[in-house]
Each structure stands twice: as structure tokens, then as C-alpha cells.
């Protein structure tokens, strides 16, 4: 059994639980929609202001959704001691990390599609280069999922996990937020040539945190 196959099985399991339980997306989509509508009202109907703030709003919604989705991914493991089951299963622990990161990434991308459509409809905004916007969200979602999956297991060992998890994750993902907002802003405005350096930063962040996760997740899972 290869690690890739084990990671696929873990991701499939997490997504199946999510699809059936609709725990994360059932909360995330209304949450993201509420944020967007609330800010839309706050900034008023002026198209120029909305165009300027839309990338930031989108990424704020994705960031907080990533925190919630990552927590949820570990709540299902802790409900009946399943995380200990994964610890004691003779499988590659890096595969558990990668499987969880893949599942959270897929959930976030599903959310991104819904939220992007919401923004375009609610704010009547157009995107000049949708491919680059999508690339920014894919790379950003991978980074957010990697950090969330890594620190989710750290927070799981604490009694105050609900408070500790955002405190651990939010400062670390600041580069994703900054690079994601800039890349989305530039791609939406059609300044494609300037987007690549921000996409590079997002890709570097992904490589770093996926590598760290693969290397240390097993140690974090142990007592």
C-alpha cells in the first residue's frame, strides 16, 4: 500500500463525511455569503469601491472558512477517538496529513466557486483573467489547507483547542492572505504580467508547509 493510495483513502473518507454531514460547507457558504452581503451594504452600491475591496473580502471569507473547515476535519476524528485509531494504524502518518490537506483543499475550492459566483452576481463585477484568479485560489487553498491540517493536530491535544487553533494558524497564513489578495486584484484588473510573482510566493508557501507537514506530522500525532 503506497502512501499516495493511503492519502487518497483518507481524503475520500473526509470528503464522504463532509458530503453526508454537510458540517463544514453547510456553515461556510452561509457564513461567506453573509460576510459579502454585509460588506456590500457597508460600502454602498458604488462599483468602484466594491471592485477595490472585493479581492480582500473574498480572501477574508476563504481564510475564515479555511479555519472552520480545518477544525471540522479534526472534530470528526476526535468524536469517538478516531484520531487515536489513525495513530495506531500501521500506516504512513504523512499520508494522513496529505489526505486531510487534500480534503480541506477540495472543500475550500468548492466554497471559492460559490463565493466567486456570489461576488460576480451581487456586486456585478467582472474578472479580466479568470484563469489567473483561479490559479491564485487553488494555490492559496492548498497553503491554507496545509497549515490548517498541520496545526489542527497540534490544537487537538489541547483542551482549549477552539481558541488555540486560530491563534496558531492566522498569523502563519498572513503571506497567503497578502499574496492571494494582490494576485486576485491584479488578475481581476487584467494586469496579468504582475500576477506571477505573487503566484510564485503562494506556490513557495505551499511547498514549505506541505514539506513541513509530511516531515513532522507523525511526530505531532504521537503523544
Amino acid at each position, binding site marked *: 500500500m503506497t502512501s499516495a493510495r493511503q492519502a487518497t483513502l483518507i481524503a475520500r*473518507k473526509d470528503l*464522504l*463525511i463532509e458530503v*453526508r454531514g454537510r458540517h463544514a460547507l453547510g456553515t461556510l457558504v452561509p457564513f461567506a455569503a453573509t460576510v459579502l452581503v454585509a460588506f456590500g451594504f457597508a460600502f454602498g452600491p458604488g462599483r468602484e469601491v466594491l471592485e477595490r475591496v472585493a479581492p480582500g473580502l473574498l480572501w477574508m471569507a476563504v481564510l475564515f472558512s479555511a479555519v472552520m473547515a480545518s477544525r471540522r476535519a479534526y472534530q470528526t476524528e476526535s468524536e469517538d477517538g478516531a484520531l*487515536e485509531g489513525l495513530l495506531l*494504524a*500501521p500506516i504512513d502518518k504523512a499520508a494522513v496529513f496529505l489526505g486531510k490537506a487534500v480534503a480541506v483543499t477540495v472543500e475550500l475550492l468548492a466554497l471559492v466557486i460559490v463565493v466567486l459566483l456570489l461576488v460576480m452576481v451581487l456586486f456585478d463585477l467582472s474578472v479580466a483573467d479568470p484563469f489567473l484568479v483561479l490559479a491564485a485560489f487553488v494555490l492559496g487553498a492548498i497553503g491554507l489547507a496545509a497549515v490548517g491540517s498541520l496545526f489542527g493536530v497540534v490544537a487537538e491535544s489541547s483542551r482549549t483547542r477552539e481558541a488555540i487553533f486560530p491563534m496558531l494558524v492566522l498569523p502563519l497564513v498572513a503571506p497567503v492572505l497578502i499574496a492571494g489578495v494582490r494576485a486576485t486584484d491584479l488578475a481581476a484588473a487584467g494586469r496579468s504580467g504582475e500576477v506571477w510573482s505573487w503566484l510564485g510566493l503562494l506556490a513557495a508557501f505551499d511547498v514549505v508547509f506541505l514539506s513541513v507537514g509530511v516531515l513532522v506530522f507523525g511526530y505531532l500525532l504521537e*503523544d
Partner: protein
Amino acid sequence: MRTLPRSPIGLKDAAVDLRGVTRLFGAAPALVRVDLAIERGEAVVLRGPNGAGKSTLLRIVATALSPTYGGGSVLGFDLAEDREQIRRRSELLTHRTRLYEELTARENLELIADLLGIAHDRVQEALERVAIADVADERVRTFSAGMRQKVAVARAIVRDPELLLLDEPTTGLDAAARGAVDEMMLRASRDGRTLVIATHHDVTPGLAARVVTLRDGSVEASS
């Protein structure tokens, strides 16, 4: 962690060979210098009042916890160095069933089977042995505590480990569910598996078991 020299007993074929195992939780000792040898194929019942250290002992043997001091071997593998080898050959069954509620009983078992490269035929056989084949495609969240424990027992049957560690496996179960656990233990014992059972209840009828009594984290008696 301090590793003690090899035991003078020299139990080359011991299933469990603990030497000077101490486990602290903070400053509180749960186990104090425990020496315990269990031969392969032997059935041992751990007795003792609440807080005597029975669960901690089982979790250390299962490698879910590390000893603070001391060490030993399980199935010939070092507790500190060969955790994955021990995990490959042992199963810890507790009142926490480690099941995923949104998956069906069959899906829970097939997940383990797939992760460990076990044929699905064994899943069906296990479901039939614990008499839950007729509800195998229902989600676990609809199951009673007894039904969940039967699924956990089925998981142990699927894995067919050399060493079965059972922590209060029948607590809160009705007669039918207790019967499934008893049958699994008897069959495993007949097949030469090693069993270590922590329980306050009567020993399974027909199971010739040595009784080890723990008190305040130490072995008080063995008979």
C-alpha cells in the same frame, strides 16, 4: 526516556515484556515501575480499582502512550523503537469505538481493510460473525452503543492481530453484544492469539486467563 537493560527473565518469545515501566501524567504517577511478562498465546485479565493503571498499561503496550521511564518489548519489538511493527500486529479495543459516524459499518471496516491491504471478503465475514451484516450499510450514527461496539469488534476480526488489547470491552453492553465480544475473545484465544483484558466484569466463560491485579499503578498480584 530511560531504557532499562534487558530482563534477566529473557523471555525471547514473550508477547509482552515490560521492565520498570513508569508513566507520569504531569507529576501524578499512573504506573510505577511495572514489570510484566506475558507469554505468546496467553490470556491475561487485568483487575484493579478505578485509577489502578489498567488503561494506561494497555495504552502503553498498544503504543498509544510512551512510558516516562522504563521500557520493554511487545511481540519481540522494542516499545520505543519499533512502534509501527507493534501497531501492525496489535489492536486496542476500548469503549471508544473509533468509528466515523457518517460512514456505514461496512465503509468503516473497508476503510481499515483498504488502508492495511486486507481483502474485502474478511469484512463481510467479520460482519456476519458479529451478526450485523443486515445493518452493515446503515450509517454508524444510527447505531446504539452496543451495535457500535460490535462494529469495533468486527474491525478487530478483520485485522486478526497477534495481540488483542481490550479495555473494558463489555461495559454498558447488552447480553447480545457481550456475547459477540466473548465469542471473538474465545476464538482469538483458541487461534493462539495473545489477549490482555482490563475489566471489572467476570472473565469470559471458557477463557483460561491469568489474573494480574494492579493497585495504585503497581502490580499487586499475579495468579
